[in-house]
């Protein structure tokens, strides 16, 4: 099981996956936006998204949980 967490304070611009989706290493899960920069959040392994904790438009803090991949 892998937890994907935010590396910085950001707005959630795009959510590209849904709970239950199968993802591979390198897939983009969500795109964050902070200080006029798009920051893709990438899956670091293969698996299924068991939890998706963010929605488009959310403001998230550094360390917040974005998704759990099992």
């Amino acid at each position, binding site marked *: 099981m892998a937890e994907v967490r935010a*590396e910085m*304070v*950001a707005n959630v611009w795009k959510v590209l996956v849904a709970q239950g989706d199968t993802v591979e290493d390198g897939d983009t899960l969500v795109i964050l*936006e902070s*200080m*006029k920069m798009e920051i893709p959040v990438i899956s670091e392994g293969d698996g299924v998204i068991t939890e998706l904790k963010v929605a488009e438009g959310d403001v998230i803090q550094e360390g917040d949980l974005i998704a759990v991949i099992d």
Partner: protein
Amino acid sequence: MGLRAIAVYSEADADLPFVREADEAILLGPANPAQSYLDAAKVLEAARVSGAQAVHPGYGFLSENAGFARAVIDAGLTWIGPSPEAIEQMGDKINARNLMEAAGVPVAAGTREPVADLEEAVAAAAGIGYPVMVKTAGGGGGIGMGVAHDEAGLAKAFEQAARAASRFGGTSAILLERYIERARHVEVQILGLADGTVVALGERDCSVQRRHQKVVEETPSPGITQELRERMLAAAVRAGEAVGYLGAGTVECLVDADKQDFVFLEMNTRLQVEHPVTELVTGVDLVEQQLLIAAGEKTVPSVAARGHAIEFRVYAEDPKRFFPGPGKIDVWAEPSGEGVRVDSGYAEGNTVTPFYDPLMAKLCVFGQTRAEALERARAAVADFKVVGPKNNLPFCAELLEHPEFVGGDYDTGLVARMRA
């Protein structure tokens, strides 16, 4: 100058120094720029209720928006900037490029019409020759720009530019230009005076960039000869004259350092972030000139050219990957001393939010020589204490020890090489 300054701000910026420092400050709305800094009607309403006579658009948000300039003028206020027509002509990069070519300003080989799809892009690139730069005609700040070395790279760069273009309203066309490897980004500061003449106030070298965005700027450029400098300044004056330019503007060029030649890149129809370095070597207060020119004063600034100045943009970002690092500022201590100028937007206790640009402060140094400026910069960077948000001061210190930067023989690829 005896003027009253009225600031506008969003909820996110309510605690920042500029709100206190202004004679009056008016809240525009929430943090989201569309509901505050980009809402022209709200800015005009703020001008009306405060009794303002003129609007200075700064260097972000609506500063290069011809529609806003027109609305300011239609409201009976003075617009501190060039005419809406000049902003429009230069705002479209394809139009600007064609206009400059007609005015005898060198331009890079590239598309004279918007490129509609990938197929057209591939055909155009074959004619121009790789590598090519793909960009959006209406974009700025490096957004949507990409370099392609072959057809596969072009497909990727085109897709990225198209995505950026659609995100900014779908009106932005895509263009291709020959990409110069080992290019320096050198720009010329111009001032269109009230009597219709245009003067050039020297150049700025802005080749230290990450993600096509400037980090450090210096003047004079250590990478151009006096002969090239004179040609560039003369071309910039012609560029300004071609659009009847009024006020402060910047003609951005790419310089092929090996060939000592240049091409027009784009014109910024506003004050630039990096204007302080020009002020330090010319002794001209550019904002004062903007105000005098907007007031119709027919004065000619007395321009000196002495010494060397460097600006470091102190960004709230990590110094390794340059990723945003907003946060609360627990400690903020600025350097001071001979030849040191700090223009900052934040103070201790403020929070740098994720909503806007990461620029926290501009650290500027002046020296009689470049070596003296570098020496003062090293001391000033070491003395600048910021605790809280991630910041790029460690990068600035690293740059000041890098042989390419110290030697002056660097190009826009320098930062990427430092992080390779």
